[in-house]
């Protein structure tokens, strides 16, 4: 016979049929209600998918235009990672009641202008601009947006999205670091540093005009932090305790 402790008597920490547990462990702090409903989630995902597709195509196209072999190989590797991300989104869409899994839409014209500018460099000596566009503008933006999404969506009802975001964020963190290492290594002169900074600023302003991958409010939303109840002190606390004592006395005398 297992000795009953106070917590196991409440079903917590018990073993077998006396463990009156919820379908998740008691330390699970996930939230049931997230920032968006199903339709709103789909609307964001088709924007993500648009960007991942454009990004993967550009990384593929740039390979042939970079004379630096290590850069050529870097973008070839990352090309597939973004195509895979787009494909994860494609598979998630029908799970969210979207019948057209090929939907893929920019949020507004300004975002299209941003992506067109980002993918514009072609000449062999523009490796710096190509890398800066991807690793200093596009990837940091994705890291911010995907992390935001992972934090605010319901991690119970929308947990398939949270899970695939984990894979993408893992790739993007690695890409961010690999890209920055390459940029640091290539930017050997003040001139190259200036070019990197100027191009980053130009793209960032365009991204700002668009409001982000989902348009204005890409990272916005209502604060949904669970707040503890306000403190009850002084007179109010004394009255509340008195009332409780009277209820208890009445119960014991009857």
């Amino acid at each position, binding site marked *: 016979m297992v000795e009953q402790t106070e917590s196991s008597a409440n079903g917590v920490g018990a073993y077998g049929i006396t463990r009156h547990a919820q379908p998740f462990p008691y330390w699970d702090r996930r939230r049931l209600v997230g920032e968006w409903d199903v339709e709103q989630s789909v609307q964001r995902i088709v924007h993500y998918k648009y960007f991942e597709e454009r990004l*993967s195509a*550009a990384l*593929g196209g740039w390979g042939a235009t970079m004379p630096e072999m290590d850069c050529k190989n870097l973008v*070839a590797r990352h*090309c597939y990672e973004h*195509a895979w991300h787009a494909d994860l989104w494609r598979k998630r869409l029908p799970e969210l009641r979207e019948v057209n899994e090929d939907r893929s839409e920019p949020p507004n014209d300004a975002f299209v202008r941003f992506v067109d500018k980002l993918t514009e460099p072609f000449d062999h000596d523009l490796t710096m601009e190509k890398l800066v566009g991807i690793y200093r503008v596009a990837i940091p933006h994705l890291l911010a947006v995907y992390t935001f999404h992972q934090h605010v969506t319901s991690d119970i009802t929308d947990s398939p999205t949270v899970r695939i975001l984990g894979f993408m964020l893992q790739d993007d963190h690695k890409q961010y670091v690999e890209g920055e290492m390459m940029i640091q290594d290539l930017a050997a002169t003040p001139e190259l540093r200036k070019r990197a900074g100027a191009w980053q600023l130009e793209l960032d302003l365009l991204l700002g005009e668009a409001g982000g991958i989902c348009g204005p409010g890409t990272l916005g939303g209502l604060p949904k932090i669970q707040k503890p109840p306000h403190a009850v002190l002084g007179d109010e606390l004394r009255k509340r305790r008195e009332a409780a004592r009277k209820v208890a006395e009445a119960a014991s005398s009857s």
Partner: protein
Amino acid sequence: MKKFMTSDELARDDRFTRSSLPLDFLMAEEVTVEQIETTMTTLLSNPDMLKSMEDEGGAASLLSGGPRLNPEEERAKLTMKTQMHGIFMGEMQALEAAGRSAWDFQDNEELPWEFQLDMCRQTWDEGRHVEIYSALLDHVDCEIGEFNENLFLFEFGCSDDPAERVTGVNRCLEGLALDVFQQTIRFGKAADDETIAQSVDFVSADEVTHVKFGQVWAKALTEGDPERRQKIVNFQRKVDRAFSLGGLRGGSYDGGATEAFLPIAREFRKVAGFSDEEIDEVAGAGPKVTS
């Protein structure tokens, strides 16, 4: 970024030099032994390698006298260096060709998303092959840029028509890769060189997938359109003829051929979806050789 690059626009660092493409030779329906000799001389361009070919009896020996490479032969190392450098450049062009397919056809209505996914996947795989072959170059004491690059794989493979592109790159170029890799794996085993045999074995497994991409997409793009199908078949014959290097490719390992310069990897090609008939067509794609 512009679409549809030409082969002379491919970016390289300054270690690389290019030899000009013998286009007329590669396209000809009939070639002479002398022409083969001249072309090989241009393509090889490395004095040591040229001397080695002469010692073996010239280009004619490539056609008749089975230079199946014995790893103990004097010329073994130099030949491996030449071949591996050529494949290294081929892998780089394959990376570039697959990546350009992802870019060039991204908004082509005819092509579903899966096409782009396949092309991006191939881009990554070819990048890995570039890494593997650069390590193998080191393994056989070859420097990057030690031999000239010729751009005929990209040149012939990269058509602006997606059906021709996948046929040229994925069926013809990758098919040629299967033939070459089978030869290299055998060489590696014969030399008791696990580094060569095992790494190329993995590379060739990837290439089978790439050939499959070509089979699937060429078929999908020409389904129910006999005219286009015929156009693609003609294009394929043209590229297969060019890739036969003047008829040096033929025979097959599985048929026990030991005399051909570059036998066809029949079994690998079958796994990739080639029919016997199609393999015979590739084997017979070379020009007529006259003396």
